[in-house]
């Protein structure tokens, strides 16, 4: 642990609930440790607030090791903060300078209704997944491992697309609030695997429809989603989703 301390000024979005107006509230942590993660800085602040009898800042978190997709903070206008390929739980205060000011906001999109402070409801992403982001398998004994040959190229690509942790940063950073990267990653992953083939046409049509139903915007190819994705998913997944959709014309009603 570093012995140094640093002063960090925070402007945090506080909002009681969906129906109340929210605003940025100033807080200063004058004894932050450079080895703290950003979420630990918020824990540190919340302990102070609770000791003073004030309401702590609500924020989502779970694994705190960059794999669960729970944390969702926009820092100084960037989803997950300034570090490439990094969820905000893996962002450490040593990346900031003593005296820095950080504006902290929740994901903002019509499809992510606000709950409290920095917490939003991301279940719209679950509903896109439920619309076709799976493969149907028969019950019974598990299939033999390695029974289906898959070439190395497709296996690698499918694995890259499967890295999505479902955090929703792509939506938060997109100027249009589009969920194309999230949806495209799952469609592209399953399109590269033989297990995904029986349902591939139905899958792309219903997932693309669901995306619009949930109120996500159109994609304008800004590629900001790829820049903020903690799993570094490429927008080639969106290109693949479009190819899959075109091939699925026969399934459109």
């Amino acid at each position, binding site marked *: 642990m570093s012995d140094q301390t640093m002063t960090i000024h925070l402007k945090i979005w506080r909002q009681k609930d969906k129906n109340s107006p929210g605003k940025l509230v100033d807080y200063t942590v004058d004894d932050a440790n450079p080895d703290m993660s950003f979420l630990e800085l918020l824990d540190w602040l919340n302990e102070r607030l609770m000791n003073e009898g004030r309401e702590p800042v609500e924020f989502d978190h779970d694994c705190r090791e960059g794999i669960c997709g729970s944390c969702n903070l926009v820092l100084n206008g*960037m989803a997950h903060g300034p570090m490439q390929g990094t969820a905000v739980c893996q962002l450490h205060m040593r990346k900031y300078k003593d005296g820095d000011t950080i504006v902290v906001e929740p994901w903002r999109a019509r499809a992510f209704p606000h709950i409290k402070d920095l917490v939003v409801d991301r279940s719209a992403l679950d509903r896109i997944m439920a619309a076709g982001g799976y493969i149907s398998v028969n019950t019974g004994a598990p299939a033999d491992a390695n029974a289906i040959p898959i070439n190395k190229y497709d296996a690698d690509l499918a694995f890259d697309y499967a890295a999505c942790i479902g955090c929703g940063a792509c939506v938060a950073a997109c100027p249009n609030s589009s969920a194309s990267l999230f949806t495209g990653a799952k469609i592209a992953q399953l399109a590269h695997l033989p297990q995904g083939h029986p349902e591939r046409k139905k899958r792309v049509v219903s997932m693309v429809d669901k995306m619009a139903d949930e109120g996500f915007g159109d994609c304008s190819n800004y590629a900001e989603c790829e820049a903020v994705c903690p799993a570094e998913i490429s927008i080639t997944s969106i290109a693949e989703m*479009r190819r899959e959709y075109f091939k699925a014309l026969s399934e459109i009603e």
Partner: protein
Amino acid sequence: MSKAATFLNSQVGRKIATGVTGFGLVLFIIVHLLGNLAYFAGAEAINTYSHTLHQLGPLLWIVRLGLLLFFVYHAWLGISIWLERRKARPDKYEMYASRGGASRQSWSSSSMILTGILLLLFVITHLNTFAFHDFEKAIHGGVEMHDVHARLSEVFAQPIYTIYYVVIMVLLGMHLRHGVWSAFQSLGWMSSKTNPIIYSIAFVLALIIAAGFIGLPLSIYFELV
């Protein structure tokens, strides 16, 4: 809804349609640019080129109608995507910044709606200046035809119109810088290998087209031809 309507109304279908109409318009722009270059070969060359186009008769009208449909549909898609965007995030960020890196947010991509609307307005004035103009007649090889050369020389002798035209062509270059690359991505013709190549080609193409269109009015204004 019919199958086609469902496809065209879906988020993916709208992008594919934007890309297809965009490519069609780029193709037209390239042909238009090549036609303009005939001015440099003299009055007979460009007047004969224009006359030959007009001799196409019904075919010319089919192309014009198709062009109009592409143009209107492309503009409508762009405007409706922009309107949808405003609905998709009713509460704005207090602070918003691009992460850079893989992001393609730039002066070009962020101003598509603005450059697009200005181009739309320009086309209306441009048709009025040239296509609907009552041309003087010129005779080449015993055939009477529109004196397009004289009209161009007259229009681009005016500083205001020349500046207006040059500015709009810079905006066209900006629109194509994102538009051409984006059309490839929208049509799904993209892989991690081709992505940087096409992004670079789009820049070069946008530059060539903008420079090509700017070359003619400036050459006329400064009496280089």
